[in-house]
């Protein structure tokens, strides 16, 4: 009956507001703290050398991370070339083609479960499938592991985004005599482009930060390589190795590497927002 008093209700409302605002401030503060911490540590080691030099034997002057940056770039490219089309096509199937819940249900459930599989498990899978038969750690296995993580994410986000496209577009297209595949490629997918791209970029961002799967597959290397049949460098693994090593110079380089990685993810996130807001503005009508 305390609630019957208007002053009590007003006070409760203000308290709730204070709680929400307070926690929001806390979150922003934490983010700010972490960012400051990283930047202050990593900035010291930042230089152009980071991007242009290879690691050296001199442990006090450890060189750069050029090999790792190129390595991550290549792994993302390879994983993306396989993961994105497969994921998108699976997403299209789930959304557009199958009406039979006996197929769709299990497939969707499987995809959902796979998005939660610990990445180290994926790494071990990659080891068994592509490292042991080939005899050595290699970039193919690394790309495979990353693609494996990527596919269910892309499939589910593509499916969800396609479902958001109004049925009236499909009906309109079919009534004009378009086939189902024409309807999908010319109307439905373009209508969902922004959001599908967002899903792809989110998957990329997730995968760019993975370390465990690469430890068992690509292993790591201190040389620039464009040959995926040998051990392959990556930013995340290199950071791990330097950070857990005993040499101060390398540790500083690790901080710089972290800064680069975080900046990459930050830029990716901004790009996601830019693409999404533009596509929302152009798709939403009267």
């Amino acid at each position: 009956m305390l609630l019957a008093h208007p002053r009590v209700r007003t006070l409760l409302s203000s308290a709730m507001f204070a709680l929400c605002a307070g926690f929001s401030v806390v979150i922003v503060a934490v983010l700010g703290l972490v960012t400051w911490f990283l930047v202050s540590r990593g900035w010291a080691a930042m230089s152009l050398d980071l991007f242009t030099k290879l690691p050296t034997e001199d442990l006090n002057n450890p060189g750069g991370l050029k090999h790792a940056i190129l390595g991550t770039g290549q792994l993302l490219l390879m994983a993306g070339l396989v993961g994105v089309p497969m994921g998108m096509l699976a997403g299209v199937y789930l959304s557009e083609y199958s009406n039979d819940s006996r197929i769709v249900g299990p497939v969707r459930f499987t995809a959902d479960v796979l998005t939660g599989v610990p990445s180290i498990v994926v790494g071990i899978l990659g080891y068994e499938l592509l490292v042991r038969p080939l005899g050595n750690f290699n970039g193919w296995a690394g790309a495979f592991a990353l693609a494996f993580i990527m596919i269910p994410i892309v499939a589910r986000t593509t499916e969800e985004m396609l479902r958001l496209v109004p049925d009236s577009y499909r009906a309109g297209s079919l009534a004009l005599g378009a086939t189902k595949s024409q309807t999908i490629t010319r109307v439905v997918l373009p209508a969902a482009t922004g959001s599908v791209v967002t899903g792809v970029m989110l998957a990329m961002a997730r995968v760019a930060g993975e370390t465990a799967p690469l430890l068992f597959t690509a292993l790591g290397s201190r040389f620039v390589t464009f040959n995926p049949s040998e051990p392959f460098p990556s930013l995340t693994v290199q950071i791990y190795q330097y950070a857990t090593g005993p040499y101060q110079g390398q540790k500083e380089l690790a901080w710089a590497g972290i800064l680069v990685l975080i900046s990459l993810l930050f830029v990716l996130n901004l790009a996601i927002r830019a693409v999404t807001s533009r596509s929302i503005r152009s798709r939403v009508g009267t």
Partner: protein
Amino acid sequence: MKTPAATPVPTTASAAGPIRVGVAAGAPGVNMLDAIRRGEKVTGYTHKEVAGEKHVLSIHDFNLYYGKNHALHDINMHIAHGKVSAMIGPSGCGKSTLLRSINRMNDLVDGVRVAGEIRLNGSNIFDRSTDVISLRRRVGMVFQKPNPFPMSIFENVAYPLRIVGEGRRSRLEEAAEKALRSAALWDEVKDRLKGSALGLSGGQQQRLCIARSIVGEPEMLLMDEPCSALDPIATLKIEELITQIAGRYTVVIVTHNMQQASRVSDYTAFMYLGRLVEYGPTAKIFQAPALTETEQYVTGRFG
């Protein structure tokens, strides 16, 4: 096709067949709508003027089931070439269902079963050999809520041509202009063809959808309550448009608005609970219907 009985007909259905109804307006006798509500088989009354027209579409003993629900009962109807035919009736009477059967859009609904024939220029559209895709190119459809694609105005109108492989810019531009002019939209959009179609007003969007549905030169145009989502001014423009394009196109329009039917159409069909009750020239249906039941509906005695 069926002449009205001069005297009242028996009130009970005989085992031999359907009740022959066709009671003249105002005369006492069997109430057909009661018979329909009781689930008895009835035969609708079709005025003889319909037979005199050239027919582009013929519907024979057409039945449709949504799962167990018998939605359309023994529909027999001929649509006159080059005329506007309206379908009126209270909600749930099956007029939209019948319309959507003509271009087989009901195929997209799970659990739909049909019996009977619908012949477009002689060939049954439910034949196994019928190519549904080409059927839908020959029979255009405009929906209740305008549904332009999220593309430019030009791309919307060009869409039906692109999907059949027409890629030449000049052909597309020529056809788009012609269709937009026919839809009375050209002057309003000619300077912003590249603009998004979603930026148009509701009435303009619907006219765009009409342009899009006629650009492929279909034989028939189906319109499912095209004005019900629009304001009165937009409605008026579209009604004028329909009157203008009739003659070149055969139009079948479903409408909730009886006044619209009387303004726009040459023939009107009154449907009730999935049956065709009366079908004839619009003037007759609204001013001198053959059946009391029709008169009761068009004078607003029930809705």
